[in-house]
């Protein structure tokens, strides 16, 4: 095993003991990117990363990210490094500032290796709509299965052991769903816990900047670095930052886990259900109290349309600044309206345009009450009902996806329970701003799948504790497609 195959924690130990250097790790990561065939990379920061890694000569024992290579979803601003969100309208755009999350990682002397691809403008869940087309699941050498999105490239590079962690963004389940298909820990924090300054806005009322790791402990370590108020992002929270590693190994006695029966009923894959029941027994054996609770099935069936209307409406206005004038390709025309129209017609994919039209339609004066405002009211109702569950429970627990990674050519009936609930219920985490984490729990047909835990706002330390207890018992730790047994 190469040192690059280790978790952050183990890699840090090796760096401190001088068993490996940041330059060696960086060189190996770049080599692996060049060999990789999964269509994960928008921009390789080869020269920048090597130059920085060369300067890292004295290990910092108390800095777990010193010299650790990482990758970044390409909708997060990186100074002097192209950042396009995998959208043609941003081709050639080079930010003049770093996102706060990037500044924090640079301050810790972590080494940015690459910008990763995504569904264009982070809108989509298939990992197929960005500049590179399909991003492939590293567990499937036949390249027929997706890794999902929108954070497809970040999931891919962590799963391929190119880096031990990568930043992503999560608006509906864009980190937590790919994590399930890639055998990773995928984490979104409480809304406002990590600054979003420099994250391209898609749906600001739902967006969160999060990450992929190969262990729960690594996720806690990363949140320790990235959490905190940021004056550049006034939606970032003033709630005091915790030590997110402090509860990692606490016993689970007294922990209360809720399983929403109607969500479980929407799953049809018997292997996933069987595994879910096994993990419930594990939690019970560890002293946790697990109860099945009920939530109106009809309300659950409205999750996806609520998400879709709100996300399209917010996206429409948040992307109005993409006009081909201040940045992006310029198209000459007789007047400035035509300049913008040409840029936007050529620069947005068909899928993006459809979402924008839908959003615009939902926001029209004649439609607002019946579409956008109704969806926003329904969101309120959903969050109220979930908060009632959280009065008595620490976490809500369910499988993260209805199946292993689907094939690219699979067809879904978008009006069935399995699509409306099992495939899309994780947007609850975004509606209520709850911290939420997916962790790997099993394999089927040699493909991984994961389960999801969602906690009350700002209860990340407890969430990591409950997740790590299961990780310890199952032994699904530091999984990667490169080193699969």
């Amino acid at each position, binding site marked *: 095993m190469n040192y690059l195959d280790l978790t952050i924690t183990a890699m840090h130990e090796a760096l401190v003991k001088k068993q490996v250097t940041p330059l060696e790790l960086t060189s190996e990561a770049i080599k692996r990117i060049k060999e990789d065939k999964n269509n994960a990379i928008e921009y390789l920061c080869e020269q920048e990363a090597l130059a920085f890694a060369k300067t890292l000569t004295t290990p910092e024992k108390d800095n777990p990210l010193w010299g650790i290579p990482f990758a970044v979803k390409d909708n997060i601003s990186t100074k002097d490094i192209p950042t396009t969100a995998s959208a043609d309208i941003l081709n*050639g755009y*080079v930010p*003049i500032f770093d996102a706060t999350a990037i500044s924090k990682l640079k301050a810790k002397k972590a080494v940015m290796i690459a910008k990763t691809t995504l569904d264009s403008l982070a809108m989509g869940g298939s990992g197929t709509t960005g500049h590179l087309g399909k991003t492939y699941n590293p567990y499937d050498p036949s390249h027929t299965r997706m890794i999902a999105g929108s954070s497809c490239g970040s999931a891919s590079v962590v799963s391929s052991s190119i880096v031990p962690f990568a930043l992503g963004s999560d608006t509906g389940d864009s980190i937590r769903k790919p994590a399930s298909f890639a055998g990773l820990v995928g984490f979104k924090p409480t809304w*406002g816990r990590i600054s979003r300054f420099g994250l391209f806005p898609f749906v600001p*009322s739902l967006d969160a900047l999060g990450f992929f790791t190969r262990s729960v402990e690594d996720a806690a370590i990363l949140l320790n670095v990235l959490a905190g108020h940021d*004056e550049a992002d*006034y*939606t970032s929270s*003033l709630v005091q930052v915790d030590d997110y590693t402090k509860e990692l190994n606490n016993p689970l006695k007294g922990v209360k886990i809720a399983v929403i029966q109607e969500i479980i009923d929407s799953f049809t894959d018997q292997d996933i259900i069987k595994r879910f029941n096994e993990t419930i027994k594990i939690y019970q054996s560890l002293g946790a109290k697990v109860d099945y609770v009920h939530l109106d099935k*009809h*309300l659950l069936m*409205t999750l996806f*349309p*609520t998400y*879709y*209307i709100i996300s399209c409406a917010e996206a429409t206005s948040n992307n109005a600044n993409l006009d081909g*004038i*201040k940045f992006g*390709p*310029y198209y000459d025309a*007789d*007047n400035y*309206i*035509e*300049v*913008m*129209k040409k840029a*936007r*017609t050529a620069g*947005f994919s068909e899928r993006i*345009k*459809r979402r*924008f*039209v*839908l959003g*615009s*339609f939902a926001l*029209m004066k*004649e*439609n607002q009450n*019946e*579409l956008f*405002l*109704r*969806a*926003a*009211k*329904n*969101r*309120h*109702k959903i*969050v*109220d009902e979930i908060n009632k569950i959280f009065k008595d429970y620490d976490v809500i627990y369910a499988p993260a996806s209805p199946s292993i990674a689907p094939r690219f050519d699979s067809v879904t009936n*978008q*009006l069935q329970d399995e699509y409306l609930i099992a495939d899309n219920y994780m947007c609850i985490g*975004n*509606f209520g*701003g*709850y911290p939420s984490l997916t962790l790997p729990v099993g394999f089927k047909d040699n493909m991984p799948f994961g389960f999801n835990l969602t906690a009350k*706002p700002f209860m990340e330390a407890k969430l990591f504790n409950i997740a790590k207890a299961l990780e310890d018992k199952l032994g699904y730790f530091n999984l990667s497609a490169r080193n699969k047994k």
Partner: protein
Amino acid sequence: MKEVTLASLKEAANRLLFDMSEAEYKTLLEEFKTVSKQMALIAEDKSVDNYSPMIYPFPVATDSLREDIPCKPESRETILKNAKNKMAGQIKLPKVVS
């Protein structure tokens, strides 16, 4: 509510300053049929009207003022570096008044 027709979708696209092909509009019209069926699920539940629209998950206190920290602003050249069409330190566009 405004009827979903090819014309109303074209109007929406026009407001957004982009164009789509006829085939793309047809796909969109089909997508609207599915979305309308999904939205009908929300419309069935009249109790939704008892809730206020949720705009953010929870309130975030923004009652503090930032300290004034002197800093050197970015140069004009840096700020304009992503604009493709520029002249004399300004973004250049076609004449608005002829």
